[in-house]
């Protein structure tokens, strides 16, 4: 392989690093901020007990939460124990992993603003649909 190709590849990588490092650092700092300012117990207080409204609330709060998916399972498991509906908990978990409000500036800068807004918006709606469908399918299958 000719040396110029390696040089080109290295230059491309360097440009990418220069572009992405400040964005990634910003996202990590924001996640640190949200994790510190929003205690985990907060999530159990946001649900209303309304079975129609709670999946929407779950999806909305899942979308602004940050952290590993494992944390969402732990919170989800605890929410179920306190009587929150399964659809609300599932909407919370699905939107936690598919919607990234905190990462939105980074996604916009690297993949395009329209793409990022549409992808996250559609994913938010889908989190509710998937949650409801999962509950229905689980019920039907006994």
């Amino acid at each position, binding site marked *: 392989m000719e040396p110029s190709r390696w040089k080109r590849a*290295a230059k491309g990588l360097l440009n990418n690093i220069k572009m992405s490092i400040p964005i990634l650092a910003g996202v990590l700092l924001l996640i640190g901020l949200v994790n510190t300012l929003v205690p985990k117990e907060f999530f159990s207080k946001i649900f209303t007990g309304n079975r129609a409204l709670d999946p929407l609330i779950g999806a909305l709060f899942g979308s602004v939460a940050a952290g590993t998916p494992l944390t969402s399972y732990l919170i989800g498991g605890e929410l179920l124990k306190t009587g929150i509906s399964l659809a609300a908990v599932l909407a919370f978990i699905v939107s936690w992993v*598919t919607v990234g409000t905190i990462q939105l500036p980074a996604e916009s800068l690297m993949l395009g603003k329209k793409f990022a807004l549409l992808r996250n918006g559609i994913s938010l709606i889908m989190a509710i649909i998937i949650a409801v469908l999962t509950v229905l399918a689980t019920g039907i299958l006994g």
Partner: protein
Amino acid sequence: MKKIVQKIGANWLFLIAVVLVYLILGLWNLQLALAGLEVFLGLLKKILPVLGIVFLLIFVSNLFLNPKTVAKYLGTGAGTRGWPIAVIAGILSAGPIYMWYPLLGELKKKGMRDALIATFLYSRAVKIPLLPMMVYYFGLKLVVILTILMILFSVLNGLLVERLTTQN
């Protein structure tokens, strides 16, 4: 304003804005700002190995992938073969979602479809190593249904995102 963004760069402005938020928080409550920084450092330590892999993949893609190859497998001309590639790659991809933006941005420049980028990002919701934990909390039947639905919806998500991004 536009000139400032162009001169400094939107990426650096974003970081500066977040640092300013920390400074303001620190002036108000230093303990909270330090706790946030501690979480930041913990996350940084955790993601560095994944970030290394991502940058290596970017280098390899720069070396071996040209727009023609990307278009062939992940572009509009890829046909149906692009979907399983995006879904499986998404499921297998490790680390947080934002680690993959630089590589996807690079592949997008080379011709990867928006639909397949969105599908990749959505199918990342299926986390194979975490499935046992999910089963523990929610039961096997529910987890199987949820996983199948998330895979199907990842394709639907891709199709919708592409349809709407191409609309004026």
